């Protein structure tokens, strides 16, 4: 089951776009940013998060993967058979929906974990090469946190898309929220509790600096996992109960 889902996911052009974009965006940003960042460091900028803060942009790739693994099942397959969707065939092969749900989730976790690990290592290595080894120390804990954040966000996209049965809604929500003016961040201006929204709290797993109040990484990871688990549970109920 998982292998089938992996093959389906990796057969999608959009998934590859997400993989490549997600893996290359963060290292590219390190290079693009290098001159300005050198100046900033010379002026005494806080460098605790150097190398890790750029990882955020690559998350778009993971989100795209989480969206297409579901939305590809729901889009029409072709002009000659209007109304036909891949999901019909998928459910014919695996009528047990919970198993299908788990297999898709497992495939997504495998792909995004590999991608996240590769990107995080690549980005930190590149930062060390550009700015010297002292500024961005290797930290297994922080890299694990970043990969976990990566996987959880992809699972969140998976859950939302499964509930919406339409990729456009999820993609809009997540891209708008990931944009430079993030909705969650704006909410923190209204209430301090917004710092516990999944996307913001999760970042505390691998970012140490910043003006906000610190939340310990393990607590942050647990809170984000709880959010995503709740969303997945909701999506599972809908997927199990609803007409396909």
């Amino acid at each position, binding site marked *: 089951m998982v292998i089938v889902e992996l093959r389906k996911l990796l057969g999608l*052009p*959009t998934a590859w*776009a997400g993989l490549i974009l997600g893996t290359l965006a963060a290292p590219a*940003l390190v290079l*693009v*940013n290098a001159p*300005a960042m050198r100046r900033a460091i010379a002026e005494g900028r806080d460098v605790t998060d150097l190398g890790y803060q750029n990882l955020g*942009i690559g998350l*778009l790739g993971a989100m*795209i993967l989480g*969206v*297409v693994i579901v*939305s590809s099942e729901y*889009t*029409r397959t072709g*002009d000659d058979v*209007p109304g036909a969707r891949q999901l019909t065939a998928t459910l014919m092969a695996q009528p047990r929906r919970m198993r299908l749900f788990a297999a898709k989730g497992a495939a997504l976790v495998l792909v995004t974990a590999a991608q996240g690990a590769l990107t995080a290592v690549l980005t930190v290595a590149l930062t060390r090469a550009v700015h010297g080894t002292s500024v961005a120390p290797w930290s297994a804990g922080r890299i694990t946190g970043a990969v976990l954040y990566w996987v959880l966000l992809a699972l969140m996209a998976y859950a939302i898309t499964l509930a919406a049965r339409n*990729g*456009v809604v999820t*993609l*809009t929500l997540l*891209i*708008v929220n*990931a*944009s*430079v*003016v993030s909705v969650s961040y*704006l909410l923190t201006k209204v209430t301090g509790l917004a710092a516990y929204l999944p996307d913001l709290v999760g970042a505390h797993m691998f970012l140490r600096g910043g003006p906000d109040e610190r939340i310990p990484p393990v607590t942050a990871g647990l809170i984000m996992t709880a959010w995503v688990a709740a969303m997945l549970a909701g999506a599972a109920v809908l997927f199990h109960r609803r007409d396909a």
Partner: protein
Amino acid sequence: MSAVHAEIRKLLTLPSLLVTAALTAAAALLPEPAPYRQVGFLIFGVLSATHEFQGQFRTSLLAVPDRPRLVAAKVAALVAVAGPLTLLTPATSAYLLATTLTAAGAGLLLRRTLPSVAVTLTAYLIVGPLLRARFPASAPWLPDTALLQPSRGAAATVVCTMAVLAAAVAVLARRDAA
């Protein structure tokens, strides 16, 4: 004229477009921050183009075989339908209309809804602001600067819309229909 009329009817009768239009209108009235106002218009533009490629495009071409004319009719219909929506925020209405057309052009080029939405939203909400923040000199060249500083990026917006639509006409005229 009948082609334009047909396109307007398509735009006005599709449920997904009506929902998007309603959400767009709601978002357009948000006071801040300005970048959010364009999200609905981008999606409206993309959907107005990509809905054709979910099984309808061959019929459309049967009715209007002249492909550049079909694109022209689509653009005219989109101006007629999205135009009134952009008037909700008069100061930025020209920019929003141009952006809607750019998104429609991207949709015609990419044909699939999801990739088109991903590309346009990423370009306008993430790549644009990032480039402006790192290289302030790039601002006059980016299509989305005009939303924030109307006097600075207007030319880039117009050129970008023209370029994407021209590319859409060129590609559509050459490519297999669906």
